[in-house]
């Protein structure tokens, strides 16, 4: 998928005539705005972009993007996108999915897309709830969550999407937040650059069924304490530089930095390319919550392997000729 220069595309070019139908105040609006902001910058003609989604509030996303779009069935978007990308490497394929869509019914397709390194840009809207079906707990809901189907609290340990993705050997794994426009847009750009599956978990507020799930990360007063921004090559600092992360063996620990605390030089310097166990350890942190790129490595890309193999077979056997194939090896003739 080559980016050809497309002059003059603007945000508006990516908007459709469909009325955007999320609840007023839904975090999805902000995500839409960021995506519509970044896409024109990529220099890709909009006809070469496809948004594929599953089912959920988040999965309505394609209707609002003036590109090609396919709102499919629950959980299957990664598989559908795999078939699309593999046969149409010229397209840039985005997948939009939710925490239920990607991690409940679609968990397996999600994993297999990652391990194959299919060149998809996966946006996983994590609002820790099933929005569209009006408020059941989801695989990412916190233990003890009281929701429509768990009036006494859920008893499922939540899934950590980042750890699951790392377990599947994903080549690009990142996290951002609906309302952190600048950061989110930066992550979108990084995804677009990446070759192979890029997964971005976007912490999203469902103000109707799970309002405030990420408040501690977005609230002006608490966010500095709770957001840990991962930046490649930089020491892990947060709380306005007053705290940092140091490794104790395999365990990342929070330390005070500066006077009375440790020196910045003792902090873990973030490395996106490190063996995944490091990212795995960081992904286990809840407080502070890391955002940014956990991992970015180069791995052979699925459709390229596919193309390469086909090329090799053609080289070895020549382009297939139908009549020869139909005849096979053992024939006889009746006059």
């Amino acid at each position: 998928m080559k980016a050809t220069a497309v002059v003059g595309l603007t945000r508006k070019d990516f908007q459709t005539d469909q009325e955007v139908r999320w609840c007023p105040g839904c975090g999805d609006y902000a995500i839409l705005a960021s995506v519509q902001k970044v896409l024109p910058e990529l220099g890709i003609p909009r006809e070469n972009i496809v948004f594929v989604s599953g089912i959920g509030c988040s999965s309505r996303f394609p209707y609002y993007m003036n590109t090609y779009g396919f709102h499919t069935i629950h959980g299957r978007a990664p598989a559908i996108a795999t078939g699309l990308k593999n046969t149409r490497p010229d397209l840039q394929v985005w997948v939009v999915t939710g925490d239920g869509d990607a991690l409940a019914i679609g968990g397996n397709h999600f994993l297999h897309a990652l391990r194959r390194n299919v060149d998809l840009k996966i946006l996983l809207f994590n609002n820790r709830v099933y929005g569209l079906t009006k408020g059941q707990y989801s695989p990412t809901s916190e233990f003890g969550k009281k929701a429509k189907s768990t009036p006494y609290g859920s008893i499922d340990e939540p899934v950590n999407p980042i750890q699951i993705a790392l377990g599947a050997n994903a080549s690009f794994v990142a996290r951002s937040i609906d309302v952190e426009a600048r950061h989110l847009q930066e992550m979108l750009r990084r995804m677009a650059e990446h070759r192979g599956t890029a997964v971005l978990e976007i912490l999203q507020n469902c103000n109707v069924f799970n309002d405030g799930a990420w408040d501690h990360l977005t609230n002006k007063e608490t966010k500095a304490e709770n957001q840990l921004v991962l930046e490649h090559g930089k020491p892990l600092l947060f709380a306005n530089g007053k705290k940092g992360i140091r490794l104790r063996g395999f365990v990342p620990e929070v330390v005070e930095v500066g006077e009375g605390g440790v020196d910045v030089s003792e902090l873990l310097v973030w490395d996106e390319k490190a063996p995944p166990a490091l990212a795995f350890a960081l992904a286990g942190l809840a407080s502070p919550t890391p955002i940014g790129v956990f991992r970015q490595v180069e791995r052979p890309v699925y459709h390229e392997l596919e193309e390469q193999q086909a090329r090799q077979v053609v080289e070895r056997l020549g382009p297939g000729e139908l009549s020869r194939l139909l005849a096979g090896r053992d024939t006889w003739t009746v006059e």
Partner: protein
Amino acid sequence: MQSQPALKPERRVERLDAVTVRFAGDSGDGMQLTGSEFSKASAIAGNDIRTFPDFPAEIRAPAGTLAGVSGFQVQFASHPIYTPGDRPDVLVAMNPAALKANLPDLKPGGLIIANTGGFTDQNLKKAGYDANPLEDGSLAGYRVIPVDITRLTENALHGSGLSAREIARSKNMFALGLMLWLYQRPLEKAVADLRSKFVGRPEIVEANEKVLRAGHAYGETAELFTSVYEVPPARLAPGTYRNISGNQAIALGIVAAAQLSGLKGFLGSYPITPASDILHELSRYKNYGVTTFQAEDEIAAISAAIGAAFGGNLGITTSSGPGIALKQEAINLAVMAELPLLIVDVQRGGPSTGLPTKTEQADLLQVLFGRNGESPVPVLAAQSPGDCFRTVLEAARIAIRYMTPVIVLSDGSIANGQEPWRIPEPSELERIQVRFRTDPEGFQPYARDPETLARAWVRPGTPGLEHRIGGLEKHHLTGAVSYDPKNHELMVRTRAEKIERIAREFPPLEVDGSPSGKLLVVGWGSTYGAIAAAVRELRRRGRDVSHLHLRYLNPLPRDLGEILSRFERVVVPELNLGQLRTILRSRYLVDAKGINKVQGRPFQVTELVERIEELLS
């Protein structure tokens, strides 16, 4: 009766019209190879042939047991035939279990070629014999030719340096050589095949060839047979032929459909018996513009194929009953999105995991009706191994022309059975028209061709035609999500009408036999051969019976009702409890009766003849 110069004068040559042979042995005995080499030789000699392999359950059972018996049956004839034969004339039994499992099928007076070397005490016990049936007189009703194939093979390979195990594995070549001699077939083809099969292992080729020739020579020299047999060539339509199995023919049909449409073929599949071989075969054809993708499950397999179709490619998925059940939700998405898609269901014994290696026709209702909502999908059934090719091509043509998923039904018996197939001339293969919409002027994603009611196919990447589709009900022109009640009804009826219109292109139905009369036998799918043979036999007996075969199960042909009404009675033989019958009764209010068999096995011609006779009397 005329003797031929090449033969010793004292041995008679009996000329026969048709012969059915069954090879039976342990799963490891190579009976499938033996059978198919023997069949090939017969086909090349000009016979019409039909074959039917009968595998045990998937896992190799312990040697010598009944569960481990693997069989291969072939009928070859000097006239057109339709089935692999009911009951064998000849049984080649490599051990007691093979004899025991297959004896009930052998014709009275039939010939048994028994490998006495396999009738050890241990094997007799494993097969549940108290005494050796070759010796206790229990086979008096048959012609038994005992041959110690085991020892003769060992003798032939004495000093070859091969291991005992490798030697034991060559037994089947002795049996093959002997049988080729008995029916006067040349050995050359089998030898050539050995060479290409064991390329790079000359010692194995040599050994096998030696044993093959030993078997042939043994027939010639040992005075076991008083006659040899000749089955003269059949008069087949002129052309170049090959043997083909249903699964091969489907794979070739897919390649042909891709090439004739100029589309990239994309198969998304997940292995399942008895459909896996389509995936295996196609995975070798990367140089033919076909990609195969072994997905993580059946749902991902069809989903990927749908993604490919959305991308403007020929999407295909193949499976068997349980896998098709899993795919239904996604098929429904293709119905709603109105995307072309080829779905192949190689039916097997059900319900549930059922009898994976056995045949059945019990998925018809599943593919017609197994989706939520009103979800019409065209369904075509192949009638023989070779016919799978044509059926797939036709299905692809319909899928693309009408922008719809299409289901092709095959089954275990034609998937693995073989028949001679006249290789089509390139000129016979009509191009499949594909017209991608590229003109943005007045484009509406769900506007329809007035004739076919198909919406336009747009390849992503086409400037100015960006649009969004999905599984929610959509506006009849714009394709935007619509909750409008009237629009929903319009769309439900339009989708139904679109599929019904396909029938306008069907050729008129052809009744085999008189066009009206006492009894019409209606069949579909793999039972074609057995029904055709049975009906002909009945007519030979003077019965007023005609045969109508349906390849289109949805929509049904427009002339079907009229044809049914011309007969006093209608009977529908099926390898299920009456699924097509259910449809015919409902649609045409005809009191169709069923002949139903659900044993994991095809119909035998004789049983059909009997059952129809009963109905007539």
